[in-house]
């Protein structure tokens, strides 16, 4: 009985070691972290830009300068923060 326990613990230690080793081998994990870091900034800015441009176009359609542009600027900021939250959530899921 004692012998089989001994074997089980030894097996567990060995598999843990193997797992750790294969985790260390996983270099693309690091790459994806740096990738996410590059991602966050542009996500925020792009949504603000897109929102403002949509507001600008709608303003030209409805002749309501500059109110829709201002309104859509804030909507765009909200969308940018939403984008960042989505990316951050995805990063957390990966961990």
């Amino acid at each position, binding site marked *: 009985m004692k012998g089989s326990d001994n074997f089980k613990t030894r097996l567990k230690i060995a598999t843990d070691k193997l797992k750790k080793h294969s985790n260390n081998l996983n270099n*693309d994990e690091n*790459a*994806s972290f*740096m*990738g996410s870091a*590059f*991602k966050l900034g*542009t*996500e925020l*800015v*792009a*949504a603000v*830009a*897109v*929102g403002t441009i*949509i507001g600008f176009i709608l303003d030209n359609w409805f002749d309501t300068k500059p109110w829709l542009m201002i309104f*859509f600027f804030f*909507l*765009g900021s*909200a*969308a*940018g923060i*939403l*984008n960042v939250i*989505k990316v951050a959530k*995805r990063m957390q899921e990966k961990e």
Partner: protein
Amino acid sequence: MATNPMHQFQVHRIGPEIKIAGFDLSFTNASLFMLLSAFAICGLLFLGTKEKKIIPDKFQLISELIYNFIAKMINDTAGSKAKPYFPFIFSLFMFVLFCNMLGMLPYSFTVTSHIIVTLIMAIFIFIAVTVIGFIKHGFGYLKLFVPSGVPIVLLPLITVIEIISYLSRPVSLSVRLFANMMAGHTMLKVFGGFVISLGMLGGWLPLGFSVALTGLEILVAFLQAYVFAILTCIYLNDALNLHH
């Protein structure tokens, strides 16, 4: 050598001017480097798959590594349903990677440092993903814009925000690649200019910076290609497996 750091981004014509229906379709240095990267990819993969050895040579090893890398990435981010799109994402990754890497050679031209190139790729991906989403889910794809568990009062506002967030995808995808490539190459040229203007006495510091920046740029060139491909996978994942 021009001292203007932006000079490297100029597109100029090679050979005769070709005009079809008012559009300038001449062969430029941008076209040349796109062709070069396409040929380089084909050459590498041709050499890599020419003979299938059990103990691979260098080319076969590189091809297999890239294949595994992309296959794993697609499987991890978009699931097994995305397998049919492997060829597209593989070519996309290779093209961006090779354009970036060829741009690191001295006197070469970086295709991806022009926003029109990256924007066209991003818009193509955006339209393709949207079409795939509508084919797979019909009008149910619109549920992407209506998150569950939102009070009725806030729903119109949230939907507009979600639509803006969706429309910002091609912009962020293209601007990221273009800005990283352009900023890095401009910085390299600026530091290179410092070396010349400071001369033998003070030129060593910017020279060291240039060497370090070159290493960083190679990393960025790879990372941006990787980010471009992985974001395509993530968008594809949204289209294939509707989560909301």
